[in-house]
Protein backbone atom coordinates (compact mmCIF):
# COMPACT_ATOMS: atom_id res chain seq x y z
CA UNK A 1 0.00 0.00 0.00
CA UNK A 2 1.20 3.47 -0.79
CA UNK A 3 1.35 5.83 2.16
CA UNK A 4 0.15 9.39 2.03
CA UNK A 5 3.65 10.87 2.18
CA UNK A 6 4.78 8.67 -0.69
CA UNK A 7 1.74 9.66 -2.69
CA UNK A 8 2.48 13.34 -2.12
CA UNK A 9 6.06 12.85 -3.16
CA UNK A 10 4.95 11.04 -6.29
CA UNK A 11 2.51 13.77 -7.26
CA UNK A 12 5.08 16.44 -6.61
CA UNK A 13 7.68 14.72 -8.79
CA UNK A 14 5.09 14.13 -11.47
CA UNK A 15 4.15 17.81 -11.60
CA UNK A 16 7.79 18.77 -11.63
CA UNK A 17 8.63 16.46 -14.49
CA UNK A 18 5.58 17.43 -16.50
CA UNK A 19 6.64 21.04 -16.40
CA UNK A 20 10.08 20.09 -17.74
CA UNK A 21 11.77 20.69 -14.43
CA UNK A 22 14.06 17.68 -14.54
CA UNK A 23 14.01 14.85 -12.01
CA UNK A 24 12.61 12.34 -14.47
CA UNK A 25 14.89 9.59 -13.25
CA UNK A 26 13.79 10.01 -9.61
CA UNK A 27 10.19 9.95 -10.72
CA UNK A 28 10.71 6.72 -12.64
CA UNK A 29 12.53 5.13 -9.71
CA UNK A 30 9.72 6.06 -7.36
CA UNK A 31 7.11 4.67 -9.71
CA UNK A 32 9.04 1.44 -9.90
CA UNK A 33 9.45 1.20 -6.13
CA UNK A 34 5.80 1.86 -5.35
CA UNK A 35 4.58 -0.31 -8.24
CA UNK A 36 2.17 2.37 -9.37
CA UNK A 37 0.67 2.13 -12.81
CA UNK A 38 1.35 5.33 -14.80
CA UNK A 39 2.08 4.01 -18.28
CA UNK A 40 1.70 7.23 -20.27
CA UNK A 41 4.06 9.28 -18.12
CA UNK A 42 6.56 6.47 -17.77
CA UNK A 43 6.56 5.97 -21.52
CA UNK A 44 7.01 9.64 -22.31
CA UNK A 45 9.78 10.37 -19.85
CA UNK A 46 11.44 6.97 -20.09
CA UNK A 47 11.71 7.23 -23.85
CA UNK A 48 13.10 10.75 -23.52
CA UNK A 49 15.91 9.40 -21.36
CA UNK A 50 16.55 6.33 -23.50
CA UNK A 51 16.69 8.26 -26.76
CA UNK A 52 19.13 10.78 -25.41
CA UNK A 53 22.42 8.93 -25.58
CA UNK A 54 24.15 11.21 -23.08
CA UNK A 55 21.57 10.63 -20.38
CA UNK A 56 21.46 6.96 -21.26
CA UNK A 57 25.16 6.41 -20.67
CA UNK A 58 24.86 8.33 -17.41
CA UNK A 59 22.58 5.61 -16.10
CA UNK A 60 25.08 2.81 -16.42
CA UNK A 61 23.63 -0.56 -15.53
CA UNK A 62 20.30 0.94 -14.53
CA UNK A 63 19.66 1.47 -18.22
CA UNK A 64 18.35 -2.08 -18.55
CA UNK A 65 15.90 -1.75 -15.68
CA UNK A 66 14.62 1.42 -17.30
CA UNK A 67 14.33 -0.43 -20.61
CA UNK A 68 12.19 -3.09 -18.96
CA UNK A 69 10.03 -0.47 -17.28
CA UNK A 70 9.53 1.40 -20.56
CA UNK A 71 8.71 -1.87 -22.38
CA UNK A 72 5.93 -2.67 -19.91
CA UNK A 73 4.59 0.88 -20.07
CA UNK A 74 4.63 0.75 -23.87
CA UNK A 75 2.61 -2.46 -23.81
CA UNK A 76 0.16 -0.80 -21.47
CA UNK A 77 -0.26 2.08 -23.91
CA UNK A 78 -0.45 -0.32 -26.87
CA UNK A 79 2.68 1.13 -28.52
CA UNK A 80 3.81 -2.35 -29.46
CA UNK A 81 6.63 -1.17 -31.76
CA UNK A 82 8.33 0.68 -28.94
CA UNK A 83 7.91 -2.37 -26.74
CA UNK A 84 9.32 -4.67 -29.39
CA UNK A 85 12.38 -2.45 -29.83
CA UNK A 86 13.08 -2.34 -26.12
CA UNK A 87 12.71 -6.09 -25.79
CA UNK A 88 15.00 -6.67 -28.74
CA UNK A 89 17.67 -4.51 -27.13
CA UNK A 90 17.28 -6.38 -23.86
CA UNK A 91 17.39 -9.75 -25.57
CA UNK A 92 20.64 -8.79 -27.31
CA UNK A 93 22.17 -7.86 -23.99
CA UNK A 94 20.83 -10.79 -21.94
CA UNK A 95 20.40 -13.69 -24.34
CA UNK A 96 19.45 -16.35 -21.80
CA UNK A 97 17.34 -14.41 -19.45
CA UNK A 98 14.05 -15.64 -18.05
CA UNK A 99 13.10 -12.08 -17.23
CA UNK A 100 13.37 -11.08 -20.89
CA UNK A 101 11.44 -14.22 -21.81
CA UNK A 102 8.69 -13.06 -19.52
CA UNK A 103 8.61 -9.71 -21.29
CA UNK A 104 8.36 -11.48 -24.62
CA UNK A 105 5.42 -13.49 -23.29
CA UNK A 106 3.78 -10.26 -22.20
CA UNK A 107 4.29 -8.83 -25.68
CA UNK A 108 2.54 -11.84 -27.19
CA UNK A 109 -0.30 -11.27 -24.76
CA UNK A 110 -0.47 -7.60 -25.72
CA UNK A 111 -0.65 -8.52 -29.39
CA UNK A 112 -3.52 -10.85 -28.66
CA UNK A 113 -1.72 -14.08 -29.57
CA UNK A 114 -3.12 -16.01 -26.65
CA UNK A 115 -2.05 -19.49 -27.66
CA UNK A 116 1.59 -18.56 -28.19
CA UNK A 117 1.71 -16.69 -24.90
CA UNK A 118 0.19 -19.67 -23.10
CA UNK A 119 2.79 -21.95 -24.69
CA UNK A 120 5.64 -19.64 -23.67
CA UNK A 121 4.43 -19.44 -20.08
CA UNK A 122 3.91 -23.20 -19.80
CA UNK A 123 7.45 -23.82 -20.97
CA UNK A 124 8.76 -21.40 -18.34
CA UNK A 125 6.77 -23.16 -15.68
CA UNK A 126 8.19 -26.51 -16.72
CA UNK A 127 11.69 -25.19 -16.11
CA UNK A 128 10.85 -23.67 -12.81
CA UNK A 129 7.50 -24.62 -11.29
CA UNK A 130 8.00 -22.12 -8.51
CA UNK A 131 8.14 -18.94 -10.49
CA UNK A 132 5.39 -16.94 -8.86
CA UNK A 133 5.32 -14.17 -11.43
CA UNK A 134 4.78 -16.55 -14.35
CA UNK A 135 1.89 -18.19 -12.51
CA UNK A 136 0.29 -14.83 -12.05
CA UNK A 137 0.84 -13.93 -15.70
CA UNK A 138 -1.06 -17.06 -16.66
CA UNK A 139 -3.97 -15.99 -14.52
CA UNK A 140 -3.86 -12.53 -16.14
CA UNK A 141 -3.80 -14.21 -19.56
CA UNK A 142 -6.90 -16.24 -18.78
CA UNK A 143 -8.64 -13.17 -17.41
CA UNK A 144 -7.78 -11.10 -20.48
CA UNK A 145 -9.23 -13.77 -22.73
CA UNK A 146 -12.42 -13.61 -20.76
CA UNK A 147 -12.05 -17.13 -19.32
CA UNK A 148 -12.88 -16.20 -15.78
CA UNK A 149 -13.42 -19.80 -14.72
CA UNK A 150 -9.97 -20.79 -15.99
CA UNK A 151 -8.56 -17.77 -14.21
CA UNK A 152 -10.19 -18.86 -10.97
CA UNK A 153 -8.91 -22.40 -11.41
CA UNK A 154 -5.34 -21.25 -12.04
CA UNK A 155 -5.47 -18.82 -9.16
CA UNK A 156 -6.80 -21.47 -6.80
CA UNK A 157 -4.05 -23.86 -7.81
CA UNK A 158 -1.49 -21.11 -7.29
CA UNK A 159 -2.88 -20.30 -3.87
CA UNK A 160 -2.81 -23.98 -2.96
CA UNK A 161 0.96 -23.80 -2.96
CA UNK A 162 1.63 -20.15 -2.25
CA UNK A 163 -1.04 -19.44 0.26
CA UNK A 164 0.72 -16.56 1.94
CA UNK A 165 0.51 -14.26 -1.08
CA UNK A 166 -2.00 -11.65 -0.11
CA UNK A 167 -2.11 -9.92 -3.49
CA UNK A 168 -3.35 -13.16 -5.01
CA UNK A 169 -6.09 -13.43 -2.39
CA UNK A 170 -7.14 -9.90 -3.19
CA UNK A 171 -7.33 -10.64 -6.90
CA UNK A 172 -9.35 -13.79 -6.22
CA UNK A 173 -11.78 -11.84 -4.04
CA UNK A 174 -12.31 -9.26 -6.76
CA UNK A 175 -12.91 -11.97 -9.36
CA UNK A 176 -15.47 -13.65 -7.11
CA UNK A 177 -17.26 -10.40 -6.54
CA UNK A 178 -17.44 -9.83 -10.29
CA UNK A 179 -19.11 -13.24 -10.54
CA UNK A 180 -21.34 -12.50 -7.55
CA UNK A 181 -19.97 -15.48 -5.61
CA UNK A 182 -20.10 -13.50 -2.39
CA UNK A 183 -19.50 -16.28 0.09
CA UNK A 184 -16.23 -17.21 -1.56
CA UNK A 185 -15.28 -13.54 -1.74
CA UNK A 186 -15.98 -13.24 1.99
CA UNK A 187 -13.58 -16.13 2.63
CA UNK A 188 -10.86 -14.39 0.62
CA UNK A 189 -11.35 -11.14 2.47
CA UNK A 190 -11.11 -13.01 5.76
CA UNK A 191 -7.73 -14.30 4.62
CA UNK A 192 -6.69 -10.75 3.84
CA UNK A 193 -7.83 -9.48 7.23
CA UNK A 194 -5.88 -12.31 8.86
CA UNK A 195 -2.69 -11.41 7.09
CA UNK A 196 -3.03 -7.62 7.46
CA UNK A 197 -5.41 -6.93 10.33
CA UNK A 198 -4.65 -3.24 10.55
CA UNK A 199 -5.46 -2.40 6.95
CA UNK A 200 -8.87 -0.67 6.93
CA UNK A 201 -9.48 -1.36 3.23
CA UNK A 202 -9.85 -5.06 3.88
CA UNK A 203 -12.30 -4.50 6.72
CA UNK A 204 -14.29 -2.17 4.50
CA UNK A 205 -14.43 -4.60 1.59
CA UNK A 206 -15.37 -7.46 3.91
CA UNK A 207 -18.14 -5.37 5.42
CA UNK A 208 -19.42 -4.53 1.94
CA UNK A 209 -19.54 -8.19 1.00
CA UNK A 210 -21.30 -9.14 4.23
CA UNK A 211 -23.85 -6.39 3.73
CA UNK A 212 -24.46 -7.62 0.19
CA UNK A 213 -25.01 -11.21 1.27
CA UNK A 214 -27.63 -10.01 3.71
CA UNK A 215 -29.29 -11.80 6.59
CA UNK A 216 -29.47 -10.51 10.14
CA UNK A 217 -26.27 -12.10 11.40
CA UNK A 218 -24.27 -10.89 8.42
CA UNK A 219 -25.70 -7.39 8.75
CA UNK A 220 -24.69 -7.22 12.36
CA UNK A 221 -21.22 -8.46 11.50
CA UNK A 222 -21.04 -5.94 8.66
CA UNK A 223 -21.90 -3.12 11.04
CA UNK A 224 -19.11 -4.25 13.34
CA UNK A 225 -16.62 -4.25 10.49
CA UNK A 226 -17.72 -0.81 9.31
CA UNK A 227 -17.19 0.32 12.89
CA UNK A 228 -13.71 -1.15 12.93
CA UNK A 229 -12.93 0.66 9.66
CA UNK A 230 -14.05 3.90 11.27
CA UNK A 231 -11.82 3.02 14.16
CA UNK A 232 -8.82 2.35 11.98
CA UNK A 233 -9.23 5.47 9.86
CA UNK A 234 -10.18 7.85 12.66
CA UNK A 235 -13.66 8.47 11.32
CA UNK A 236 -12.46 9.86 7.99
CA UNK A 237 -13.75 7.10 5.76
CA UNK A 238 -17.10 8.30 4.42
CA UNK A 239 -17.99 4.95 2.94
CA UNK A 240 -17.78 3.32 6.34
CA UNK A 241 -19.96 6.02 7.83
CA UNK A 242 -22.58 5.47 5.15
CA UNK A 243 -22.22 1.76 5.69
CA UNK A 244 -23.00 2.09 9.35
CA UNK A 245 -26.17 4.07 8.64
CA UNK A 246 -27.36 1.60 6.01
CA UNK A 247 -26.62 -1.40 8.20
CA UNK A 248 -28.43 -0.01 11.18
CA UNK A 249 -31.53 0.79 9.17
CA UNK A 250 -31.45 -2.63 7.47
CA UNK A 251 -31.07 -4.38 10.83
CA UNK A 252 -33.91 -2.30 12.18
CA UNK A 253 -36.09 -3.34 9.28
CA UNK A 254 -35.31 -7.00 9.68
CA UNK A 255 -35.77 -7.11 13.42
CA UNK A 256 -38.86 -4.97 13.53
CA UNK A 257 -40.91 -7.61 15.23
CA UNK A 258 -38.31 -8.74 17.71
CA UNK A 259 -37.00 -6.73 20.57
CA UNK A 260 -33.39 -7.73 20.76
CA UNK A 261 -31.60 -4.66 19.54
CA UNK A 262 -28.03 -3.74 20.39
CA UNK A 263 -27.83 -1.20 23.11
CA UNK A 264 -25.36 0.98 21.36
CA UNK A 265 -26.78 0.91 17.86
CA UNK A 266 -28.80 4.15 17.90
CA UNK A 267 -25.81 6.04 19.27
CA UNK A 268 -23.53 4.80 16.54
CA UNK A 269 -25.95 5.65 13.78
CA UNK A 270 -26.65 9.13 15.12
CA UNK A 271 -22.96 9.80 15.51
CA UNK A 272 -22.25 8.56 11.99
CA UNK A 273 -24.97 10.80 10.61
CA UNK A 274 -23.58 13.78 12.49
CA UNK A 275 -20.06 13.08 11.25
CA UNK A 276 -21.29 12.80 7.67
CA UNK A 277 -23.19 16.06 7.88
CA UNK A 278 -20.18 17.84 9.29
CA UNK A 279 -18.00 16.47 6.54
CA UNK A 280 -20.38 17.46 3.77
CA UNK A 281 -20.80 20.90 5.25
CA UNK A 282 -17.07 21.34 5.02
CA UNK A 283 -16.43 19.92 1.59
CA UNK A 284 -19.60 19.98 -0.48
CA UNK A 285 -22.16 22.26 1.11
CA UNK A 286 -24.23 22.23 -2.06
CA UNK A 287 -24.95 18.55 -1.64
CA UNK A 288 -25.92 18.80 2.01
CA UNK A 289 -29.69 18.88 1.44
CA UNK A 290 -29.38 15.71 -0.73
CA UNK A 291 -27.55 14.02 2.09
CA UNK A 292 -30.01 15.06 4.77
CA UNK A 293 -33.02 13.89 2.79
CA UNK A 294 -31.38 10.53 2.03
CA UNK A 295 -30.43 9.99 5.64
CA UNK A 296 -33.82 11.00 6.84
CA UNK A 297 -35.45 8.35 4.70
CA UNK A 298 -33.08 5.83 6.29
CA UNK A 299 -33.90 7.00 9.75
CA UNK A 300 -37.60 6.82 9.17
CA UNK A 301 -37.46 3.20 8.17
CA UNK A 302 -35.16 2.18 11.02
Amino acid at each position, binding site marked *: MVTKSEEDQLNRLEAQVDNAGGGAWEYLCLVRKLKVRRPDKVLKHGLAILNDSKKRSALGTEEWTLCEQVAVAAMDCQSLDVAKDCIKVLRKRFPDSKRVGRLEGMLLEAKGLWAEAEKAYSSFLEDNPFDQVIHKRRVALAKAQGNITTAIECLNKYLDTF*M*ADHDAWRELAEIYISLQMYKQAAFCY*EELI*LSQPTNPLHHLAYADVLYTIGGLENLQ*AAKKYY*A*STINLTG*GKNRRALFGVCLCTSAIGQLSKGRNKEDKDSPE*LQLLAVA*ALEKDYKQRAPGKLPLLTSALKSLRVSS
Partner: protein
Amino acid sequence: MAEDLVLDTAIRDWVLIPLSVVMVLIGVLRYFVSKLMRSAQIPDAKLVKEGQVIVRARNLRAAANFIPPKSFRARRLYYSNEENGLLYVPKGQAPNAQAQMFSDPNMAMDMMKKNLSMIIPQTLTFAWVNFFFSGFVAAKIPFPLTQRFRAMLQNGIDLSTVDVSYVSSRSWYFLNLFGLRGLFSIILGEENATDDTQRMMQMTGFGFTQPKSLGAEKDGLDIVQHDWTMPKFERRAEAVLRKLVR
Protein backbone atom coordinates in the same frame (compact mmCIF):
# COMPACT_ATOMS: atom_id res chain seq x y z
CA MET B 1 52.45 -5.63 38.09
CA ALA B 2 50.49 -2.58 38.98
CA GLU B 3 52.47 -0.16 36.86
CA ASP B 4 51.41 0.60 33.38
CA LEU B 5 53.31 -0.89 30.53
CA VAL B 6 54.07 1.54 27.80
CA LEU B 7 53.26 0.04 24.47
CA ASP B 8 55.05 1.13 21.37
CA THR B 9 52.86 3.03 18.93
CA ALA B 10 54.49 0.98 16.24
CA ILE B 11 52.41 -1.91 17.50
CA ARG B 12 49.29 0.02 16.72
CA ASP B 13 50.47 0.94 13.27
CA TRP B 14 51.82 -2.40 12.24
CA VAL B 15 49.68 -4.89 14.09
CA LEU B 16 46.25 -3.70 15.02
CA ILE B 17 45.35 -1.70 11.94
CA PRO B 18 46.74 -4.12 9.34
CA LEU B 19 45.01 -7.01 11.05
CA SER B 20 41.64 -5.27 10.94
CA VAL B 21 42.14 -4.19 7.34
CA VAL B 22 43.09 -7.71 6.31
CA MET B 23 40.04 -9.18 8.00
CA VAL B 24 37.72 -6.73 6.31
CA LEU B 25 39.25 -7.45 2.93
CA ILE B 26 39.02 -11.20 3.45
CA GLY B 27 35.40 -10.83 4.44
CA VAL B 28 34.58 -8.87 1.30
CA LEU B 29 36.44 -11.41 -0.82
CA ARG B 30 34.52 -14.25 0.79
CA TYR B 31 31.25 -12.50 0.13
CA PHE B 32 31.92 -12.22 -3.59
CA VAL B 33 33.26 -15.75 -3.84
CA SER B 34 30.19 -17.12 -2.12
CA LYS B 35 27.96 -15.17 -4.49
CA LEU B 36 29.76 -16.73 -7.42
CA MET B 37 29.70 -20.20 -6.00
CA ARG B 38 26.10 -20.25 -4.92
CA SER B 39 24.27 -22.81 -7.03
CA ALA B 40 20.71 -22.09 -8.06
CA GLN B 41 18.58 -23.67 -5.41
CA ILE B 42 15.65 -25.62 -6.75
CA PRO B 43 13.12 -25.46 -3.96
CA ASP B 44 11.35 -28.61 -3.00
CA ALA B 45 7.61 -28.47 -3.68
CA LYS B 46 6.65 -29.91 -0.34
CA LEU B 47 8.96 -27.62 1.59
CA VAL B 48 7.68 -24.50 -0.16
CA LYS B 49 4.09 -25.43 0.50
CA GLU B 50 4.83 -26.24 4.13
CA GLY B 51 6.59 -22.95 4.58
CA GLN B 52 3.62 -21.05 3.24
CA VAL B 53 1.19 -23.11 5.32
CA ILE B 54 3.14 -22.20 8.42
CA VAL B 55 3.00 -18.52 7.54
CA ARG B 56 -0.73 -18.72 6.97
CA ALA B 57 -1.35 -20.64 10.18
CA ARG B 58 0.74 -18.15 12.09
CA ASN B 59 -1.31 -15.30 10.64
CA LEU B 60 -4.44 -17.11 11.72
CA ARG B 61 -3.15 -17.44 15.24
CA ALA B 62 -2.06 -13.83 15.42
CA ALA B 63 -5.18 -12.21 14.02
CA ALA B 64 -7.76 -14.78 15.08
CA ASN B 65 -9.75 -12.21 16.95
CA PHE B 66 -10.49 -10.18 13.87
CA ILE B 67 -12.66 -12.70 12.05
CA PRO B 68 -16.05 -14.00 13.09
CA PRO B 69 -16.04 -17.05 15.39
CA LYS B 70 -17.62 -19.34 12.84
CA SER B 71 -14.96 -18.68 10.23
CA PHE B 72 -12.24 -19.09 12.79
CA ARG B 73 -13.55 -22.45 13.85
CA ALA B 74 -13.91 -23.57 10.26
CA ARG B 75 -10.32 -22.62 9.55
CA ARG B 76 -9.02 -24.27 12.67
CA LEU B 77 -10.76 -27.46 11.68
CA TYR B 78 -9.31 -27.14 8.19
CA TYR B 79 -5.82 -27.03 9.63
CA SER B 80 -5.98 -29.62 12.36
CA ASN B 81 -8.44 -32.08 10.92
CA GLU B 82 -7.46 -35.66 11.58
CA GLU B 83 -7.74 -36.90 8.06
CA ASN B 84 -6.53 -34.25 5.73
CA GLY B 85 -5.74 -31.23 7.85
CA LEU B 86 -2.88 -29.17 6.52
CA LEU B 87 -0.92 -29.15 9.73
CA TYR B 88 -1.68 -32.64 10.81
CA VAL B 89 1.33 -34.92 10.76
CA PRO B 90 0.71 -38.55 11.67
CA LYS B 91 3.05 -39.82 14.31
CA GLY B 92 5.05 -42.33 12.33
CA GLN B 93 5.57 -40.24 9.29
CA ALA B 94 7.55 -37.32 10.62
CA PRO B 95 10.85 -37.88 8.85
CA ASN B 96 13.94 -37.10 10.74
CA ALA B 97 15.15 -33.98 9.04
CA GLN B 98 18.75 -34.56 9.97
CA ALA B 99 18.83 -37.91 8.24
CA GLN B 100 17.09 -36.31 5.31
CA MET B 101 19.68 -33.59 5.17
CA PHE B 102 22.58 -35.98 5.04
CA SER B 103 21.02 -38.29 2.53
CA ASP B 104 20.07 -35.56 0.12
CA PRO B 105 23.27 -35.08 -1.89
CA ASN B 106 22.53 -31.56 -3.05
CA MET B 107 21.93 -30.27 0.41
CA ALA B 108 25.02 -31.99 1.74
CA MET B 109 27.11 -30.38 -0.97
CA ASP B 110 25.67 -26.98 -0.21
CA MET B 111 26.40 -27.36 3.46
CA MET B 112 29.91 -28.48 2.74
CA LYS B 113 30.53 -25.52 0.47
CA LYS B 114 29.23 -23.05 3.01
CA ASN B 115 31.23 -24.58 5.80
CA LEU B 116 34.37 -24.63 3.74
CA SER B 117 34.02 -21.00 2.77
CA MET B 118 33.85 -20.21 6.45
CA ILE B 119 36.47 -22.56 7.87
CA ILE B 120 39.31 -22.11 5.44
CA PRO B 121 39.73 -18.32 5.64
CA GLN B 122 39.34 -18.44 9.40
CA THR B 123 42.00 -21.11 9.75
CA LEU B 124 44.39 -19.38 7.38
CA THR B 125 44.02 -16.01 9.05
CA PHE B 126 44.42 -17.52 12.46
CA ALA B 127 47.60 -19.32 11.42
CA TRP B 128 48.94 -16.10 9.87
CA VAL B 129 48.25 -14.16 13.05
CA ASN B 130 49.92 -16.78 15.14
CA PHE B 131 52.96 -16.93 12.96
CA PHE B 132 53.61 -13.25 12.59
CA PHE B 133 52.03 -11.60 15.56
CA SER B 134 52.71 -13.82 18.53
CA GLY B 135 54.96 -13.40 21.52
CA PHE B 136 54.28 -9.80 22.37
CA VAL B 137 51.68 -7.67 24.02
CA ALA B 138 49.46 -6.09 21.41
CA ALA B 139 46.94 -4.00 23.26
CA LYS B 140 45.53 -3.06 26.61
CA ILE B 141 41.90 -3.63 27.34
CA PRO B 142 40.49 -0.54 29.04
CA PHE B 143 38.69 -2.39 31.82
CA PRO B 144 40.15 -4.77 34.40
CA LEU B 145 39.66 -8.49 34.02
CA THR B 146 39.95 -11.48 36.28
CA GLN B 147 42.70 -14.04 36.20
CA ARG B 148 40.59 -16.60 34.45
CA PHE B 149 40.88 -14.76 31.15
CA ARG B 150 44.63 -15.11 31.14
CA ALA B 151 44.63 -18.39 29.28
CA MET B 152 42.32 -17.08 26.65
CA LEU B 153 43.72 -13.65 26.01
CA GLN B 154 47.42 -13.92 26.70
CA ASN B 155 48.27 -16.99 24.76
CA GLY B 156 51.59 -15.96 23.28
CA ILE B 157 52.84 -14.18 26.34
CA ASP B 158 54.66 -16.52 28.69
CA LEU B 159 54.94 -14.20 31.66
CA SER B 160 52.41 -14.96 34.31
CA THR B 161 52.80 -11.68 36.13
CA VAL B 162 51.64 -9.42 33.36
CA ASP B 163 48.28 -7.80 34.06
CA VAL B 164 45.44 -9.60 32.33
CA SER B 165 44.39 -6.42 30.64
CA TYR B 166 47.37 -6.66 28.35
CA VAL B 167 46.34 -9.00 25.61
CA SER B 168 48.02 -10.62 22.70
CA SER B 169 47.16 -10.13 19.07
CA ARG B 170 45.26 -13.40 19.01
CA SER B 171 42.57 -11.82 21.13
CA TRP B 172 42.48 -8.83 18.78
CA TYR B 173 41.82 -11.29 15.98
CA PHE B 174 38.90 -12.84 17.86
CA LEU B 175 37.57 -9.41 18.73
CA ASN B 176 37.59 -8.47 15.09
CA LEU B 177 35.98 -11.74 14.08
CA PHE B 178 32.93 -11.10 16.17
CA GLY B 179 32.89 -7.36 15.94
CA LEU B 180 33.14 -6.81 12.20
CA ARG B 181 29.75 -8.40 11.66
CA GLY B 182 28.07 -5.01 12.07
CA LEU B 183 30.51 -3.37 9.70
CA PHE B 184 29.91 -6.02 7.06
CA SER B 185 26.18 -5.60 7.24
CA ILE B 186 26.65 -1.91 6.47
CA ILE B 187 29.12 -2.43 3.63
CA LEU B 188 27.67 -5.49 2.01
CA GLY B 189 23.99 -5.07 2.70
CA GLU B 190 21.85 -7.46 4.66
CA GLU B 191 22.59 -10.75 2.98
CA ASN B 192 26.22 -11.47 3.51
CA ALA B 193 27.80 -14.83 3.91
CA THR B 194 30.31 -13.48 6.36
CA ASP B 195 27.91 -13.89 9.20
CA ASP B 196 30.03 -16.57 10.78
CA THR B 197 28.80 -16.13 14.27
CA GLN B 198 25.21 -16.58 13.18
CA ARG B 199 26.10 -19.65 11.21
CA MET B 200 28.04 -21.07 14.13
CA MET B 201 25.01 -20.60 16.33
CA GLN B 202 22.85 -22.27 13.71
CA MET B 203 25.20 -25.22 13.52
CA THR B 204 24.95 -25.90 17.21
CA GLY B 205 21.18 -25.89 17.13
CA PHE B 206 20.63 -28.12 14.12
CA GLY B 207 17.24 -29.43 15.08
CA PHE B 208 15.70 -27.37 12.29
CA THR B 209 13.01 -29.84 11.36
CA GLN B 210 10.00 -29.02 9.26
CA PRO B 211 7.47 -31.52 10.64
CA LYS B 212 8.22 -30.39 14.16
CA SER B 213 7.37 -26.80 13.35
CA LEU B 214 4.13 -27.92 11.72
CA GLY B 215 3.21 -29.80 14.87
CA ALA B 216 4.12 -26.79 16.96
CA GLU B 217 1.87 -24.57 14.86
CA LYS B 218 -0.98 -27.04 15.19
CA ASP B 219 -0.61 -27.10 18.96
CA GLY B 220 -0.47 -23.34 19.08
CA LEU B 221 -3.61 -23.14 17.00
CA ASP B 222 -5.43 -25.58 19.26
CA ILE B 223 -4.64 -23.46 22.26
CA VAL B 224 -6.02 -20.22 20.83
CA GLN B 225 -9.18 -18.96 22.46
CA HIS B 226 -11.25 -16.95 20.10
CA ASP B 227 -12.41 -13.63 21.47
CA TRP B 228 -14.07 -11.60 18.80
CA THR B 229 -12.86 -8.03 19.11
CA MET B 230 -15.43 -6.56 16.77
CA PRO B 231 -18.04 -5.64 19.41
CA LYS B 232 -15.34 -3.71 21.24
CA PHE B 233 -14.55 -1.91 18.03
CA GLU B 234 -18.11 -0.75 17.74
CA ARG B 235 -17.89 1.02 21.03
CA ARG B 236 -14.50 2.43 20.17
CA ALA B 237 -15.81 3.72 16.86
CA GLU B 238 -18.50 5.54 18.75
CA ALA B 239 -15.91 7.24 20.88
CA VAL B 240 -13.90 8.22 17.80
CA LEU B 241 -16.92 9.68 16.08
CA ARG B 242 -18.00 11.49 19.19
CA LYS B 243 -14.63 13.20 19.33
CA LEU B 244 -14.81 14.02 15.65
CA VAL B 245 -18.28 15.50 15.78
CA ARG B 246 -17.66 17.58 18.86
